[in-house]
């Protein structure tokens, strides 16, 4: 008797159901890290990502390198001349800097100066392959002393905080992520509030008392009540500050101080 094979073979849903159930259980349990497997996989992928970043930067940098090489020798000679003429002024400036430093220590600003912070440089090796999260992956991890909730900054201001640490790499949640919130203060009026991420790439400041005085153009900085971030780090500039007659709080839109799409290197505050 000739065997009959149906055109459509019925597939058992057992395998996908088991995988989905396991993923659901792990996602909502304390085993999200899969007993170190997640960290191990990240460590395995790290060399590939580092190599890819180097290759990518090499490819992207070729046109600018060729153009800048030509100008470099001309600029070099020009700068040498300028340097010679600035030498006397430099000595005077050094004296001013010393005096400035003394005054700063007298005013106890020194301890709060963000540029006095111990910083660990890190390179961005990747971004979360997901449109819902604003997460960066950096090339410093447990080995370099990175810990959870460490603040991350660039020269322009605060970038975010560390949310996941593996052996050689870490993940940084950007200020613009919907889950991000930072205690902040208006640099001019000293009105307090909470800066929250508003995807894609925007920031809003919540809980600012409507009786306050926030104006467009004000610089918003981290507040000294934050347990994670040092005070005085720029977050952004107010682009819209409105309140209606019976509102309890301001509606504030902020343009981030940092262009998150262009940063390639960051600093971790140790």
């Amino acid at each position, binding site marked *: 008797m000739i065997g009959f094979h149906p*055109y*459509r*073979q019925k*597939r058992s*849903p057992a*395998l*996908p159901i088991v*995988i*989905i159930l396991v*993923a*659901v259980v*792990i*996602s*909502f349990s304390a085993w*999200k890290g899969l007993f170190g497997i*997640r960290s191990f*996989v*990240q460590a395995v*992928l790290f060399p*590939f*990502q580092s190599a*890819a*970043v180097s290759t*990518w930067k090499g490819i992207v940098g070729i046109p600018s390198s060729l153009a800048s090489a030509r100008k470099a020798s001309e600029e070099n000679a020009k700068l040498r001349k300028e340097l010679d003429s600035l030498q006397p002024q430099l000595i005077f400036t050094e004296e001013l800097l010393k005096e400035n430093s003394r005054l700063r220590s007298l005013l106890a600003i020194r301890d709060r100066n963000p540029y006095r912070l111990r910083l660990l440089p890190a390179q961005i*090796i*990747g*971004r*979360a*392959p*997901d*449109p*819902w*999260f*604003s*997460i960066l*992956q950096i090339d410093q991890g447990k080995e370099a002393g990175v810990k959870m909730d460490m603040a991350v900054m660039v020269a322009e201001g605060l970038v975010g905080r560390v*949310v*996941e640490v593996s052996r050689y790499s870490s*993940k940084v*949640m950007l200020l613009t992520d*919907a*889950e991000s919130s930072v205690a902040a203060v208006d640099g001019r009026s000293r009105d307090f509030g909470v800066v929250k991420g*508003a*995807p*894609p*790439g925007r920031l809003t400041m919540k809980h600012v008392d409507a009786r306050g005085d926030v104006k467009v153009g004000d610089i918003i900085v981290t507040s000294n009540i934050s347990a994670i971030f040092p005070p005085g780090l720029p977050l952004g500039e107010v682009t819209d500050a409105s309140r209606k007659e019976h509102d309890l709080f301001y509606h504030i839109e902020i343009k981030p101080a940092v262009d998150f*799409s262009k940063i390639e290197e960051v600093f971790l505050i140790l």
Partner: protein
Amino acid sequence: MRLILILTYVIFLVVLQSVVFSRLHFFGVSPDLILVSIICFAVLEKSERAVVFAAGSAFLQDVLSFGIYLHTITRVAISWIINSVRGSFAGNEYFLAAVFVFLFTPLALVVESGFHSIFGGRPFDIGHLLFTILVATFYNLFMVPVLFPILRKISCG
């Protein structure tokens, strides 16, 4: 040999996605190479290997992302659905893969966005979602002619 080939492909893809394509994003949206590969592989493979491929590659995507294993859940479901219904369709596999990419890219994004809003407490922005769907679908369709021939070779090999 085939397993090594698939593993190399997945690692290459995940690295490419997180390092290169994340830098080529358009307002935060970049092509989802892994989703496209999972769909193409589900069309090409006639066994449950497609589900295993989806689970493995989506797991790596979750490891490089943040939070729960939502990619693994959605991608495995997508792979299984395609693998189950593809027998009902006759004709060009390449065209079929493109149609599935066109259908499942928005569906995956809607499910993920809804999930993050309901369970993750993230704000639901319909404008942002529609924009993401539009750009991501276009990007993903653009990636089908690039990834499909590679996966066909891996699948046949």
